[in-house]
């Protein structure tokens, strides 16, 4: 049994982890223009500070025996009213420390990289303030020791991502994307907030220890409901089916930096939530199955979308959906999968960061062009970017010894431990990954030059390439380091549990089959996109390609199911504020807008009609009273 220790020594600095970036954000936002010059550096300093503390904590934690690695720091009593008691308490254990490290270390690299990328933006200070806000919220999310505090971080992350995606509001697409992300995330938030209330009513507490300790006493129906609500929340934040639509649009963020924030960091929050709530899912098998299904659907959706997009950032976003799908999928497998979900999350965080920053570096050299059909033959021009990108590429498709191989392989293996069909599906998806990533690399770095006339590609400055190199090294060695030296599965076991079930065939068979499928996918990609000439105009493509270019009609389906009946009438009625209402979201917006219009019309402005509706209301209320009385 895990012991819970008070925060002492280096752990007493737990609150500082969050306070540092939060203070940075505050200073930058309130300081105004005065902080323009030194503000960004301060932002970096706070995150680096948090990273240093996090590393010290990791070392301190490793010195302790496995049962004594959970630390709780009660900052203060937040809400204590009657039976409802919530402390502002932070919890650091093996699970949160890996997230803290991912957030602070990758965060610090993004910060440094942004310094170069955003050098000429007049609002650079604000951008750093939002980044700081994001880091602080994300740290709060993973360090909270109860669901309510987690929710605070959750909302904070949503707010910060909204600010970052919409950072370039002058681009209408960015504004619309920000709204879309906000609204879809709110749908997930509803799931989380209702789940928290349900948890409180069921268990009488919202702290993790109390809840997980009492899981056995709750009935399975309630647990399933909680599990499904948490899944809804995770789907919103982690861009899983059916709430995936926002992630692709979020690539409208000003820079690959913010794209990365969403792709490598923020979207992991959902996986964290599921892994953290493992006790609930273990007891609610139906909910866990739903997690597997959602993960699997998303793996394929993301992969197919990634195969068809010509926009390098969107293609990467599709791949992110797919990879997060792997993690959710793994988490749904139960104790055989949690640790590998987290393992893949860590390796993915690093190699996807490398890929995104690499894409940013390419765009930087290509006058911010994102269309891969206008790239080609960049390997000679951008050598460092090319090499680092290749490291990320090999990692994501899972070629040994690059990091993705180890983590993805473990997930596939875990899938076979559960069921051979879903295992096979996971292998197939890995093949598609091989295809679209090869396509991306081929179109960008190989083949012929298809540059636009006024584009003169060049290697990016050091401030951008150094993070790339660091991340490339991570992409290469991190998998091995975590698995062989870090014993990741045993490190996480006390928190999320770990077990292994024998599979029908020996392990090496799965590895070989997976590798073969991946290589076949890669060869198809190579043959199609590097050996042949890539047309500058996208060919019409087959049905699947066209569907995938439309995000697999995610928006269209939303449209047809929900919007279409009310969409047109709403359009006719909504003569003003088109942007706000339209962009609100493509689905509910028009419906709600229409309703709003109709309701507003009852506001005639005549006192006599107001009085009439008062009488009508009074009649309804009195009748209701009488009916209740008589029933």
């Amino acid at each position, binding site marked *: 049994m895990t012991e819970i220790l008070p925060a002492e020594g280096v752990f007493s600095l737990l609150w500082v982890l969050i306070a540092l970036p939060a203070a940075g954000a505050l200073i930058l936002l309130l300081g105004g223009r005065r902080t323009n010059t030194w503000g960004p550096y301060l932002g970096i300093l706070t995150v680096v500070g948090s990273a240093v503390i996090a590393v010290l904590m990791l070392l301190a934690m490793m010195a302790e025996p496995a049962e004594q690695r959970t630390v709780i720091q009660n900052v203060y009593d937040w809400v204590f009213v009657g039976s409802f008691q919530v402390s502002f308490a932070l919890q650091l254990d093996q699970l949160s420390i890996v997230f803290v490290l991912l957030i602070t270390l990758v965060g610090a690299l993004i910060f440094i990289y942004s310094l170069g990328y955003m050098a000429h933006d007049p609002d650079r200070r604000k951008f750093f303030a939002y980044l700081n806000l994001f880091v602080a919220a994300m740290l709060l999310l993973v360090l909270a020791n109860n669901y309510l505090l987690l929710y605070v971080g959750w909302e904070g992350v949503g707010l910060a991502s909204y600010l970052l995606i919409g950072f370039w509001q002058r681009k209408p697409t960015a504004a619309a994307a920000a709204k879309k992300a906000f609204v879809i995330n709110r749908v997930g938030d509803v799931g989380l907030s209702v789940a928290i209330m349900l948890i409180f009513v069921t268990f009488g507490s919202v702290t993790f220890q109390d809840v997980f300790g009492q899981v056995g006493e709750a009935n399975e129906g309630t647990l399933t409901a909680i599990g499904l609500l948490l899944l809804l929340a995770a789907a919103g934040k982690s861009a899983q089916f059916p709430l995936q639509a926002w992630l692709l649009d979020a690539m409208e963020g000003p820079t690959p930096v913010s794209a990365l924030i969403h792709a490598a960091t923020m979207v992991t929050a959902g996986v964290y939530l599921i892994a953290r709530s493992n006790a609930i899912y273990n007891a609610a098998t139906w909910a866990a199955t739903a997690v597997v299904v959602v993960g699997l659907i998303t793996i394929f959706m993301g992969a197919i979308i990634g195969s068809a997009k010509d926009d390098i950032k969107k293609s990467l976003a599709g791949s992110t959906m797919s990879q997060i799908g792997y993690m959710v999928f793994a988490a749904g497998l139960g104790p055989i999968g949690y640790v590998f979900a987290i393992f893949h999350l860590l390796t993915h965080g690093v190699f996807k960061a490398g890929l995104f920053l690499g894409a940013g570096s390419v765009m930087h050299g290509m006058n911010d062009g994102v269309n891969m059909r206008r790239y080609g033959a960049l390997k000679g021009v951008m050598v460092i970017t090319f090499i680092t990108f290749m490291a990320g590429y090999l990692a994501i498709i899972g070629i040994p010894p690059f990091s993705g191989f180890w983590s993805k392989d473990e997930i596939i293996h875990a899938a076979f431990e559960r069921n051979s069909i879903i295992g096979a599906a996971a292998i197939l998806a890995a093949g598609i990954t091989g295809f679209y990533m090869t396509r991306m690399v081929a179109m960008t770095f190989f083949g012929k030059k298809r540059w636009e006339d006024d584009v003169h590609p060049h290697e990016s400055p050091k401030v951008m390439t150094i993070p790339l190199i660091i991340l490339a090294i991570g992409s290469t060695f991190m998998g091995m380091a975590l698995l062989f030296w870090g014993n990741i599965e045993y490190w996480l076991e006390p928190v999320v549990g770990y077990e292994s079930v024998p599979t029908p065939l020996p392990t090496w068979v799965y590895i070989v089959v997976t590798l073969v499928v991946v290589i076949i996918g890669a060869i198809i990609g190579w043959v199609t996109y590097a050996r042949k000439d890539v047309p500058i105009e996208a060919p019409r493509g087959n049905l699947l390609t066209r569907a995938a270019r439309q995000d697999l009609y995610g928006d269209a389906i939303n449209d047809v199911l929900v919007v279409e009946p009310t969409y047109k009438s709403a359009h006719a009625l909504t003569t003003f504020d088109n942007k706000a209402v339209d962009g609100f979201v493509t689905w509910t917006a028009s419906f709600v807008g229409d309703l709003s219009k109709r309701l507003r019309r009852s506001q*005639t402005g*005549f006192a*006599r*009609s107001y009085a*009439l509706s008062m*009488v*009508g209301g*009074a*009649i309804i209320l*009195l*009748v209701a009273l*009488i009916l209740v009385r008589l029933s």
Partner: protein
Amino acid sequence: MTGGEVGTGETIVFWVCGTLAVIGALGMVISRKAVHSALFIALTMINLAILYVANSAPFLGMVQIIVYTGAVMMLFLFVLMVVGVDASDSLIETIKGQRVAALLMGIGFSILLIAGLGNGLMETSSIGLETANSANGGNVEGLAMLIFTDYLIAFQVTAALLITAAMGAMILTHRERWYPRKTQRELSEERFAAGTHPGQLPPPGVYARHNAVDTPALLPDGSTSDLSVPEPLRARDDVREIDTDDIEGIRKLSSGSSTTDEGDR
């Protein structure tokens, strides 16, 4: 009369006065002239007062007559007569379906209340004021007792309500003069300084057959004065032409001789 039962006389009074009160209330809402409305409401008030008295609450009945019928409604009528009623108020309902809806709602609400109350009062018997009135030696004494004990605070803070009402009336109507009052001399000087006709304009002409405003006045020389006709008529060229025969006739008339053919028309 004892509590618990209702005598025949009281029943008759109730049905007569109750009916009249309801008729008065409906008339107040339906009638188009404000004065009629005011009179109808007075009818209602008086009938209510009678009902109060019949229910052994004589003080309330008297107060009802003195305050509502005597003071409030009369004040209302005075105001109506002094200010006058603007007959141009449109009585056409512009909101579609408002009247029908109002009617339906009114009926619905009445049904609800009548049914609810009827149902609820079925098993209730009346208590009457006998006990309450005798407790302190009379109706007025009983009321006084309540006002100065249970409802003392409510009675006192009503003062706040009255002060607010009085002040509100002041705020909305009292015009403060921001300029000094003009003296007679200033007014007179102002009139002459304007350079226009300082005195009264000549009134329209008055002849045997015409005294309408479009009839110009005759000047001593026999011509007519345009000034005597209101400006708008002049602008529209609606000034009546003077028939010379008429003038001749008048001249004859004033000189004593008579033309009888159409003089008494």
